[in-house]
C-alpha cells in the first residue's frame, strides 16, 4: 500500500466527521421543530484492500443518514390524534349546550317555570284579582321568552358546528393537496439508485398526517415508491400525487353532510373533530333538543286542555292559554308533497315524531321516529288522509319507495310557543258557568298539573322531566370532558414516547459535537503526520 493511501484514510475520517458534525448541527438546529425526527449518521468500514498479509483497512464511509423513527409509535400517535380531535369537538359543543341548562348560575328554565306556576297559584287564591291575572300573563310571557332563548342557545351551537364542519372540509382539502405534493417530492427524491430516505420530507408528511388525524379518521398505506394513499370512509382522499375533493352539503334537516369524490361518507366518519362534531350534533338534536321541545309541547298541550274547559271572567270558554301546537313536516320526494298536516284530536296526541315511508306496492308506513315501531300503514291514495295518534296528514302526487317524510308536533313547539291569551279577563280560572269571579277551581287544576305525572312525558312531572334533561346535558358534558382529559393524557404519553425515540437531546448532541470534533482533529493530525512522513522521504 502506497504512503498516499494514508492520505485517503485521513481524508475519509475528515469527511465522515464533517458529515456527522453537519447532521449533529441539523439536529441541534431543529431541537424545537415540531415533528422533527432526530437523524443519526451510520458509519461503515470502507472496503478493505486485500494484501498477501491479509486485508488492510481503507478508512470509513458514511453509509446513510438515518431517522430515529418508530413506525408503531407513529401509527399509535395518528390513532390518538383522531380520538383527541373527536373528544375535543364533543367537549366544546356539549360544554356550550350545558351552559344553556346551567341552573347553577340561574340559566335554564326552572326559575321561570316555578314563577309561572306560582302565578297560577296567586290567581287561584285571588281569582277575581286584576293584578294577579296580569302578573300571570307576564310570567307566562317570560317563560316563553326564556324557552325561546334556550332553544336558540342550542340551535346556535348546532349551527356553529355546521359552520365548523364546512371549515374542516376546507382544511382537509388543503392538507390533502400538501400531502399529495410531498408524495411527489418523496418519490422523486428516493428514486434512483443509491439515494437514501428523504428524511425531512417524510417528517413534513408525518406532521401533515398528524394534523389531518385531528380532523378526521383515515387509513394509510405506503407503496413501494414511498408515496402514501390516504383513505377516508373507504374512499381515497390522496393517492400518489392526486387528491379527491372533500365537500359538504346541507341535508333536508339543515345539517351538513360530508362527501368525498361525490359520495356521502357522513356515516363512516367516526373520529377526529369531524366525527365528533357530527356525532355530537346528532346526539344533541335527538336527545337534549328533542326532550326540551317535548317538555314545552307537553306544557302547551296539558295547559290548553284544562284552560279551554274553563271560563274567563267575561264568561268566555274554549280559549287556549298558549298558542296551539302545530305539525311540522319535511321530507324528500321527486313527485309527491305533503299538502296538509294538522292535529285532529289534541287529547290523542302523544307528542312523538313520525317517519312516513312508502313501498313499491304503493303502501304507506308510519313509524315512530324514536322507538322505530310501526304506528299505522295502508294503501296510499294521492291526496287521501293518513291519520294516526290524533294527527292527520295528506300527501299528494306519485310516491316511490325512496320517498320519505317526517311529521313532528315537536319541531316547531318552541318556535310557535306564545301566550294566546292577551286579555286578562279571558284567563279561565273558573270551572263553571258565567259570571263566577270567585270560582278558582280551574286555576287550581292548572296549578295542579305541576304535581301530576304527565303520560306523554313517560309518567313524570314537568319539573322531573326537566331535571332529566339538565342531568342528561350535565352527564354528556361530564363524559365528554372526562374523555377529553383521558385522550389528552394518552396523547401526551404517546407523544412522550415518540419524543423519547425521535426527539433531540441537547446533551447528547453536545457530546456528539465534541466526539466528532475530536475525531475530525485526529483525522487532520493523521494527514499532518502522513505529510511529515512524506517530507521525511523527500528529504532522504
Amino acid at each position, binding site marked *: 500500500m502506497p504512503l498516499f493511501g494514508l492520505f485517503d484514510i485521513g481524508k475519509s475520517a475528515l469527511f465522515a466527521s464533517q458529515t456527522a458534525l453537519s447532521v449533529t448541527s441539523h439536529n441541534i438546529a431543529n431541537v424545537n421543530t415540531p415533528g422533527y425526527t432526530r437523524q443519526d449518521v451510520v458509519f461503515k468500514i470502507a472496503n478493505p484492500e486485500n494484501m498477501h498479509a491479509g486485508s488492510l483497512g481503507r478508512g470509513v464511509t458514511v453509509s446513510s443518514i438515518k431517522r430515529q423513527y418508530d413506525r408503531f409509535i407513529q401509527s399509535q400517535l395518528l390513532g390518538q390524534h383522531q380520538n383527541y380531535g373527536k373528544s375535543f369537538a364533543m367537549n366544546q359543543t356539549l360544554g356550550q349546550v350545558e*351552559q344553556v341548562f346551567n341552573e347553577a348560575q340561574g340559566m335554564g328554565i326552572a326559575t321561570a317555570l316555578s314563577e309561572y306556576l306560582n302565578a297560577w297559584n296567586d290567581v287561584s*287564591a285571588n*281569582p277575581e284579582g286584576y293584578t294577579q291575572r296580569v302578573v300571570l300573563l307576564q310570567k307566562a310571557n317570560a317563560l316563553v321568552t326564556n324557552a325561546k332563548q334556550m332553544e336558540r342557545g342550542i340551535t346556535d351551537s348546532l349551527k356553529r358546528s355546521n359552520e365548523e364542519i364546512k371549515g374542516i372540509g376546507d382544511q382537509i382539502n388543503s392538507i390533502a393537496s400538501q400531502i399529495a405534493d410531498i408524495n411527489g417530492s418523496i418519490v422523486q427524491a428516493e428514486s434512483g439508485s443509491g439515494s437514501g430516505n428523504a428524511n425531512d420530507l417524510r417528517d413534513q408528511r408525518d406532521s401533515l398526517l398528524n394534523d389531518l388525524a385531528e380532523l378526521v379518521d383515515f387509513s394509510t398505506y405506503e407503496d413501494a415508491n414511498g408515496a402514501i394513499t390516504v383513505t377516508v370512509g373507504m374512499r381515497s382522499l390522496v393517492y400518489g400525487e392526486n387528491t379527491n375533493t372533500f365537500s359538504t352539503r346541507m341535508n333536508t334537516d339543515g345539517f351538513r353532510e360530508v362527501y368525498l369524490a361525490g359520495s356521502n361518507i357522513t356515516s363512516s366518519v367516526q373520529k377526529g373533530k369531524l366525527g365528533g362534531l357530527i356525532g355530537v350534533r346528532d346526539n344533541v338534536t335527538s336527545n337534549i333538543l328533542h326532550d326540551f321541545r317535548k317538555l314545552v309541547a307537553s306544557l302547551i298541550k296539558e295547559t290548553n286542555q284544562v284552560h279551554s274547559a274553563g271560563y274567563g271572567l267575561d264568561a268566555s270558554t274554549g280559549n287556549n292559554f298558549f298558542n296551539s301546537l302545530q305539525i311540522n313536516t319535511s321530507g324528500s320526494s321527486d313527485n309527491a308533497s305533503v299538502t296538509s298536516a294538522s292535529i285532529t284530536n289534541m287529547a290523542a296526541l302523544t307528542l312523538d315524531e313520525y317517519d312516513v315511508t312508502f313501498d313499491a306496492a304503493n303502501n304507506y308506513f308510519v313509524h315512530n321516529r324514536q322507538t322505530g315501531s310501526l304506528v299505522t300503514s295502508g294503501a296510499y291514495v294521492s291526496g287521501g288522509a293518513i291519520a294516526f295518534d290524533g294527527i292527520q296528514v295528506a300527501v299528494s302526487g306519485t310516491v316511490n319507495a325512496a320517498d320519505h317524510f317526517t311529521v313532528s308536533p315537536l319541531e316547531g313547539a318552541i318556535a310557535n310557543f306564545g301566550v294566546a291569551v292577551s286579555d286578562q279577563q279571558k284567563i279561565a280560572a273558573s270551572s263553571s258557568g258565567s259570571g263566577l269571579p270567585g270560582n278558582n277551581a280551574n286555576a287550581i287544576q292548572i296549578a295542579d298539573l305541576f304535581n301530576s305525572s304527565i303520560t306523554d312525558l313517560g309518567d313524570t312531572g314537568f319539573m322531573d322531566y326537566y331535571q332529566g334533561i339538565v342531568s342528561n346535558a350535565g352527564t354528556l358534558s361530564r363524559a365528554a370532558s372526562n374523555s377529553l382529559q383521558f385522550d389528552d393524557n394518552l396523547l401526551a404519553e404517546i407523544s412522550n414516547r415518540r419524543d423519547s425515540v425521535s426527539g433531540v437531546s441537547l446533551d447528547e448532541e*453536545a457530546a456528539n459535537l465534541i466526539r466528532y470534533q475530536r475525531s475530525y482533529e485526529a483525522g487532520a493530525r493523521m494527514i499532518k503526520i502522513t505529510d511529515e512522513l512524506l517530507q521525511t522521504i523527500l528529504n532522504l
Partner: protein
Amino acid sequence: MRVTSQMVYNQLRRALQGNLSELAEKNTRLYTGKKIDKPSDDVIGMMNAMGYRVSISGNEQYQRNINEANTNLELSGTVMKSLADGLLKMKQLTSTGSDAQSQENRDRYAQEAAGLRDFFLGLSNTKAGNRYLFSGYQSDQKAFVYNSVTHAYDYQGDLGEIKVPVDKGADVSINIQGSRAFSFKVSSEMPAKLADGTPVSTSQTTDPSTGITTTTIEIGNAGDPAHDTFSFSNIMDLTNVMSYAWKYQDIDGTALHSNSGTNELMALHRIMALTVPLDSARSQALNMEAEAGIRRVQIRDQNTRLTATNLNLKNALTATEDADMTETITDIKKIEVALDALRASSASIMSKSLFDFLTAV
C-alpha cells in the same frame, strides 16, 4: 428511557397547565362561593339542588296562599264576632221590649233594631280587597241587597267554596258563604205556644242552590182575628221584621191589623215569637266564628311546618351547592406551594445542558 429536550419541556408545560387550571377552578369556587359551577361538575348534586330550589319556591307559594287565606278567615271571624255581639244586643232589646210600651219607647226600640239591621247588612257585604267575603263564587256581587218590591233581603251569592292549596294535595276554604253565615235554621227549642198560650207553628225550607233557609212562622189558628203568618230568610230579614213590629207595622209599612188592639197584640206576638230564632242566629254566628278560628289554627300549623321544612331544605341546598371556604383556601395554598416548587425546580433543570459545562472546559 431516553430523555430529550422536547420531553422535559412538554412535561413541564403540562404540569404547569395542570396546576394553573386547578388553581383557576378553586379560585372560581372562591369567588362564586359555590362548589357546583355547572351541571357537569356534579350531576347528582345539581339535580338535588334544583329539586330543593323548586320545593322551596313551591313551599313559599303555599305560605303566600296561607297568608291570603289567613287574611280572609281572620276578617270573616271578626265579622262573625261582631254579628254575634249585635245579635246579643238585639236579644236584650226583645227581653225588655216584648210587652206593651209607650210610643216613644217603641220608636226607640224600632230605631235601634233598624240600626242593627243596617249594621248586619253592612257586615254581610264586607269586602276583602275587591272580593265580597260572603258571596261565594259571586265575589263581585254584594252578598245581600234590599228588595224594594218584596221588602226582603235577597242573597245574591252562591254556595261556592273558594279553596286555595296550602300543600301538595291539601286545600283550605278561605270563605264562609253568606247562606251559612247570615241564614240559619231555627232550633228545635222553638216553643209550640207563646207565653200567653197562643199556638205557634214553624216551617222551614232550604233552597239547595243557595243554601238559604226560609223560615215561616204562623201565630194563632186560622180564623183567629190575630192570626198572623210571616217569614224571614236571614238575619237582616229577622231584624227588619222586629224593627217594624215595634212600630206595630208589617215590613211593607202597613198596619198589621185595622183594629188597634189586635194590631198591638199581633206585633207583640211577633216580638215574642222571634226570641228563639234570635238565639239560633246567634249560635250560628258563633259557630261560624269558631269554624274560621279552627281553619286558621289548621293553616297556622301548616305554615309552621312549611317554615321548618323550608329551613331544612335551605340547609340541604347550602350543603349541596356551597363551597367550604376554609377547605377551598387551604386547597389553593397547597396548589400554590406545588406550583412554586415546580417553577423553582424547572428553572434549574431547563437552564442546564452539557453546553453550559463545555464553555468552562
